[in-house]
């Protein structure tokens, strides 16, 4: 991924000082959905943490943004479509779902997702949100 500019890095540092790390866990999803199980593993962890009422936020960056794209159909390639479980996020009170705007733009993807209540953030805002979490796992 592209490196942060110095200005962006300092913005992140600034926010680290001023904002408490109040949320428990951030999961960064960086892989496309079907070729590997990273997305499924991340989903499992999100639902387990949410079941125990630990705050979980989801971040989609790089090829991870493909996990959210509308009109996918894993059954065509005999993959169990775990993406449909994303619809349960609301039930699990997983409300903080962030998408990297730059990753969408690079892939020429429209903002049509198969779940609602997602927030598209610039790289800078994405980083600011991320550092508010106590723990960060990347898949």
């Amino acid at each position, binding site marked *: 991924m592209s490196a942060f500019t110095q200005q962006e890095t300092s913005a992140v540092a600034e926010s680290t000082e001023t904002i408490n790390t109040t949320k428990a866990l951030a999961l960064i999803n960086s892989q*496309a959905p079907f070729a590997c199980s990273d997305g499924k593993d991340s989903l499992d962890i999100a639902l387990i943490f949410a079941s125990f009422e630990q705050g979980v936020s989801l971040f989609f960056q790089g090829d991870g943004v493909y996990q959210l794209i509308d009109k996918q*159909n894993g059954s065509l390639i005999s*993959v169990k479509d775990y993406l449909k479980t994303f619809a349960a996020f609301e039930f699990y009170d997983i409300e903080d779902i962030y998408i990297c705007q730059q990753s969408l733009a690079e892939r020429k993807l429209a903002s049509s997702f198969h779940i609602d209540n997602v927030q598209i953030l610039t790289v800078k805002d994405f980083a600011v949100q991320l550092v508010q979490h106590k723990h960060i796992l990347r898949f």
Partner: protein
Amino acid sequence: MTTLHIVRKSAFSSNDLAQCLALATKADTIVLLDDACYNVNHPLIAKTLNEQPELAINIMQTHAQARAVNIMNPIKAIVMEDLIKLTFTHKQVITWQ
């Protein structure tokens, strides 16, 4: 002497497509499988279609559809049977994975 290039990874997170295109000549054929289907929207493919229009680029139809990837001309949608035929009509096969 022609080569069949089977590309399997997204060029947005891997260097495979760039390495493949660096070696491909105009008589070769490229097939996009699995996450390589995302490459239809990658600037490298657009550049190649522009600079080497003779180079055939195919895409596995089901793999693209599963990923909600739109197939546009001149990229040709193929099925698994076509891929097998291609392995016989080319002298070598390279799988980029």
